[in-house]
């Protein structure tokens, strides 16, 4: 079988890409989804908040999943469910449209090889399970990830009475706590090694207020106990080492995302050691011509709408490559690529190579930090040369940090890697020596809501107004950054 574009994965990124490809006049778009239903993770995320940035309305995960799947079918994409892509062989053709790419698939219809002019990998990400976190102890039942928990509760209507503990205190951890409460469990606590939680109020706040779940900070699950069934876990204070046994019936390991990158690696794509997904340029093309990657495969994990917009972004470049999309996006010859390296405490940046001046999805790069840092400026350097300095950003583990793309034109294509570092500011310019306030904090085991930061809401509003896909604020940020670059004394 031959198609113009094969999309692997019918989550938000894959479906959004399929819709956009069809909208831009690409002839045949086949979406292969290994699950029996399209939609990806939102299928089993029962809370609201989906669709904000891409569909401009807010709905629950399952409704969002259905909306995207319906739109993809309406757009004329072919959706094959229960179809697993088991291998991708890049054609090795040079440059644009260099495919075709050969893909093998298994479904109830048998084993099939599909040839596509372009392939978009949108295989998403998963949470690291307990074993991968090397938490010792017994191997009883009742230990799972949020993904499994949500499917058990929302797709299988399972009940989970008894006591439950949630490992992690980021957005998804609150979602897990809510799911547990829906399943009849009493959530004892959220446990995080950090000295504060990492989520913000938004949609989780209501749930948090309602179920009154404390967050145990600076604490780590050190052992799982129970033969057959879970008896409980040992939780230790990471500062003192003092441990205590917490009896419980369910433990949910949340977050700690890793891209589902098996296909990308089997295809021999260059991999980014930070994101652990394939290396992608700002057009979201991988190291193999004609093979693109989008969504949480290249940034695990962003919200579903950001993944969707990433898929849409890749689709526009795929369409241009196939000659049906916007000519203005044509990248010209693809350079060898200048890698972008995120230096500690930054963990990764996505996209992570520069092959052209094309703007990244949403006009910005997304980064992660491994530590909390009070507001600091990010500096973009190449061969010691300062390309840009960002506005002050607060670093919170597992929360996105954004960096505008106005500096792309200043990158020397023949130069060394671009490094993104956390700038050091003189004390008088730096942030005050106070703990950054999280907008949900715990006082004596009770949730206390703090007023949302209006500046955040304002930024989001502006970004929305500027429209997806367009670089809404890159230019403006670039201007501001140039000003600050000249104002600050070089370190």
């Amino acid at each position, binding site marked *: 079988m031959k198609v113009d574009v094969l999309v692997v994965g019918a989550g938000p990124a894959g479906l959004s890409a399929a819709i956009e490809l069809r909208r831009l006049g690409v002839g045949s778009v086949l979406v292969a989804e290994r699950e029996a239903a399209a939609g990806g993770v939102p*299928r089993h995320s029962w809370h609201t908040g989906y669709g904000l940035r891409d569909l401009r309305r807010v709905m629950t995960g399952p409704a969002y999943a259905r909306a995207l799947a319906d739109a993809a079918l309406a757009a004329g994409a072919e959706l*094959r469910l229960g179809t697993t892509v088991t291998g991708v062989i890049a054609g090795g053709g040079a440059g644009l449209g260099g495919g075709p790419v050969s893909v093998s698939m298994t*479904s109830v219809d048998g084993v099939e090889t599909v040839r596509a002019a372009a392939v978009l990998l949108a295989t998403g990400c998963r949470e690291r399970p307990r*074993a*991968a976190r*090397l938490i010792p102890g017994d*191997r009883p039942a009742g230990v799972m990830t949020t993904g499994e928990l949500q*499917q058990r509760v929302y*797709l299988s209507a399972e009940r989970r009475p008894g006591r439950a503990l949630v490992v992690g205190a980021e957005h998804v951890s609150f979602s897990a706590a809510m799911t547990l409460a829906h399943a009849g469990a009493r959530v004892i606590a959220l446990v995080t090694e950090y000295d504060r939680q990492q989520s913000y109020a938004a949609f989780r706040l209501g749930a948090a207020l309602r179920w009154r779940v404390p967050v145990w900070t600076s604490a780590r699950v050190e052992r799982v106990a129970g033969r057959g069934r879970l008896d409980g876990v040992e939780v230790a204070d990471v500062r003192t080492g003092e441990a205590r046994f917490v009896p419980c019936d369910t433990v949910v390991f949340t977050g700690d995302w890793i891209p589902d990158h098996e296909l990308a690696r089997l295809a021999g794509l260059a991999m980014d050691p930070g994101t652990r997904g394939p290396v992608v340029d700002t057009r979201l093309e991988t190291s193999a011509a004609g093979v693109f990657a989008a969504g949480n495969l290249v940034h695990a994990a962003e919200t579903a709408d950001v993944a969707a917009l990433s898929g849409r972004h890749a689709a526009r470049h795929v369409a241009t490559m196939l000659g049906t999309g916007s000519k203005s996006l044509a990248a010209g010859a693809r350079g060898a690529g200048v890698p972008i390296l995120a230096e500690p405490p930054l963990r990764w940046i996505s996209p992570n190579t520069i092959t052209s001046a094309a703007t990244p999805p949403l006009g910005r790069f997304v980064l992660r930090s491994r530590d909390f840092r009070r507001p600091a400026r990010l500096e973009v350097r190449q061969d010691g040369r300062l390309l840009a300095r960002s506005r002050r950003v607060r670093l919170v583990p597992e929360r996105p940090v954004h960096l505008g793309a106005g500096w792309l034109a200043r990158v020397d294509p023949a130069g060394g890697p671009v490094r993104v570092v956390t700038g050091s500011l003189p004390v008088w310019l730096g942030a005050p020596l106070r703990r950054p306030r999280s907008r949900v904090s715990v006082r004596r085991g009770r949730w206390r809501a703090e007023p949302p930061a209006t500046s955040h809401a304002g930024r989001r509003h502006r970004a929305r107004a500027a429209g997806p896909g367009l670089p809404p604020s890159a230019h403006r940020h670039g201007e501001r950054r140039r000003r600050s670059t000249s104002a600050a004394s070089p370190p």
Partner: protein
Amino acid sequence: MTPDPADVVIIGAGVVGTAIARTLAGYSLDLVLVDTAGDVGAGTSKANTAILHTGFDAKPGSLESRLLVRGSALLRSYAAAAGIPAERTGALLVAWTPEQAAALPSIEENARRNGYLAVRPLPAGELYAREPRLGPGALGAVEIADESIICPWTTPLAFATEAVGAGVRLMLSTQVTGVAAADGCHELATTRGPVRGRWVVNAAGLGSGAVDRMFGGDGFTIRPRRGELIVFDKLARTLLRSILLPVPTARTKGVLVAPTVYGNVLLGPTAEDVPDAGDTATTAAGLRALLAAGRRILPGLVEEEVTAAYAGLRAATEHADYQVYADAERRYACAGGIRSTGLSASLGIAEHVAGLLGEAGLPMKPRPGYAASPPAMPYIGEAGVRPYQDPARIAADPAYGQIVCHCERVTRGEIRDALASAIPPADLGGLRRRTRAANGRCQGFYCGAAVARLLAGARGPAKSGVSAETREPAKAAEPAGAGEP
């Protein structure tokens, strides 16, 4: 439960007990196989290094050496006939220090004294050509060409399936708590009522010392020795070709790195004596030590994701050798104190025990018209063709095209077959050992709920799982289910 006494009751349905059962099934004997666990091979047999040893490093002249050489040859051909995944990867025993390098010739010599000749020295250059990802500093190696990897789960299951097919009565979840003499036979007190047998064979693994004492033995005590292991992601499989062995010490064979038949890489085991024969917990110190060893042996390994960590217990004793004997007067045979090599030696031990029983007076008449034939086990290895890769199989039965566990590519057809097999799984662990479902890198993130649903649907009398399943986005389920017979 058994009004007529059986001819032989075998205690323990691990790899040794099931091997004895299938071997004795070739004779006109009424056989009962009992085990405490709810599944066969669910004790010490299920958690080991999954290596089919040649016995090159055994102590020459020992019973272990003899049964290992014989047993591994038998198992090699049995595995091929029964569809038990096994791969002859060969092993490289690597020396990292001058002392270890000096010990290599004696290891070769030891192998030859065990009758194993396919050993040869491998200088460092050749070693690195064979295993380019090996950590720096290796001084040389000994190659053992026939060391293999094998599926430790399919093996006892195949033995038990063959035995049950030949009429052996399998009693699971049945713990033997005592024994009394009754009408010229043994009456075993069990948690599920009395079980009577003229002869008793003790293959109780970690419980073999306690069972031996019930029968008046006092020759050995089990000292459980825990071994922790780490399973790495399949993407690590390309890092090595052979089993990488360390130079053994008096106490343990040491920490090895080995491919698995499922396409993963195994690192371990540790060796630690524990008082509790049920203590299969991993420890922070153990996992740390393994990672340190792994980083030295194969540095690329620790960059890969960990799929699982587990611990197994070896049924070690105060003796170096197996504790195998038969006593005519007590009408009792013991196959105890079988350590790491039990999987490889199992068929050798079974043959030996059958011989001892015959000498002790058990009437051993070949069963008329019975030809031992290994059962056709579902193939769950990576070296052959799995159902999801097989167009003919999917065309004949589309359930083999419906992948449920994505990481391990286990189809609904395979899960259905396992649930309907002669010895069905008692729980999720049993299903995992039969199919690999939910055994992969996501550990259930994607398929945990679906696999649990299939398991519940097969077990629950109310079939509540079925309604839950049809509830799942019904519209979307149609294309996948449309081709079902």
